[in-house]
């Protein structure tokens, strides 16, 4: 059975309850899901979403729990990483989406004029994955054919590409629908 991990920072939306008892609900359970919602959830700062982010990676979930807390975690007030087992097929009312597949399915034609592809150099994706530490790669001018007369500019970056990179970086899946408490099988303190 696939195992996923959910990091929960101190003082955040899900921190006040034991998810092994309550299950996991999204911040906005009544909101509609679209691919655009998924992209906003992953690549922008949209927190009021019908999606629940989880990771296939314990390390990623632990990093979010520790670093995305609203107070620094301590032994007395730890952040948490929950282990969540979701069977295939999932329980009724639960849908697990791979954001890469979701976005790719809507960008399957390489012949359209506006593409998710960037036109920077081979290091450009490093900047997308790590905008603080490697942000220089984001703004390095896009090389253009000699004599083309193109305006000096940074490479193209679409929200679709940001979503791909961040979802892959974080080994992220999106869950729609409340996750039943029975599927939340373990909790780890993080501090």
């Amino acid at each position, binding site marked *: 059975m696939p195992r996923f991990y959910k990091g929960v*920072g*101190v*003082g*955040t939306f899900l921190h006040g309850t034991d998810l092994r008892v309550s299950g996991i609900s999204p911040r906005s359970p009544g909101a509609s899901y679209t691919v655009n919602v998924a992209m906003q959830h992953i*690549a*922008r*700062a949209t*927190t009021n979403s019908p999606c629940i982010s989880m990771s296939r990676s314990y390390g990623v979930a632990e*990093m979010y729990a*520790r*670093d*995305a*807390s*609203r*107070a*620094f975690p*301590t032994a007395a007030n730890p952040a948490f990483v929950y282990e969540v087992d979701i069977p295939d097929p999932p329980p009724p009312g639960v849908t697990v989406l791979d954001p890469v597949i979701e976005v790719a399915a809507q960008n399957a034609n390489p012949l359209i004029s506006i593409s998710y592809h960037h036109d920077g150099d081979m290091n450009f994706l490093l900047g997308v994955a*790590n*905008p*603080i*530490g490697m942000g220089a790669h984001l703004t390095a001018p896009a090389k253009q054919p000699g004599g083309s007369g193109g305006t000096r500019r940074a490479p193209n970056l679409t929200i679709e590409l940001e979503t791909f990179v961040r979802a892959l970086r974080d080994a992220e899946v999106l869950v729609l629908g409340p996750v039943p408490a029975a599927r939340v099988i373990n909790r780890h303190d993080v*501090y």
Partner: protein
Amino acid sequence: MAEPNSVDLHGKISDIGAVHFLRAEWQNPQSRFVLIRYAVDAKEERYGLRLDLDKKAILDDVGDAATARAVKERAQDIWKIVVDVRFRRG
């Protein structure tokens, strides 16, 4: 547990009504997030606001919708201060 690094925000970020920005804190120099400490009516709040450095966005809400929006609009200014200090300190 490591002591947090911090950047003083007093006087660098304008108040929003009763909301006064105090400092930005982080424990892990590699963290994508910093914690913005703030006071309401001169009393520091127990929980800070998470600033996502990748997204240049504050993830948490303060007060009513107008206040929350105004606080989030300070994200870019705080981000500049934090990134400048983090790059200089390493």
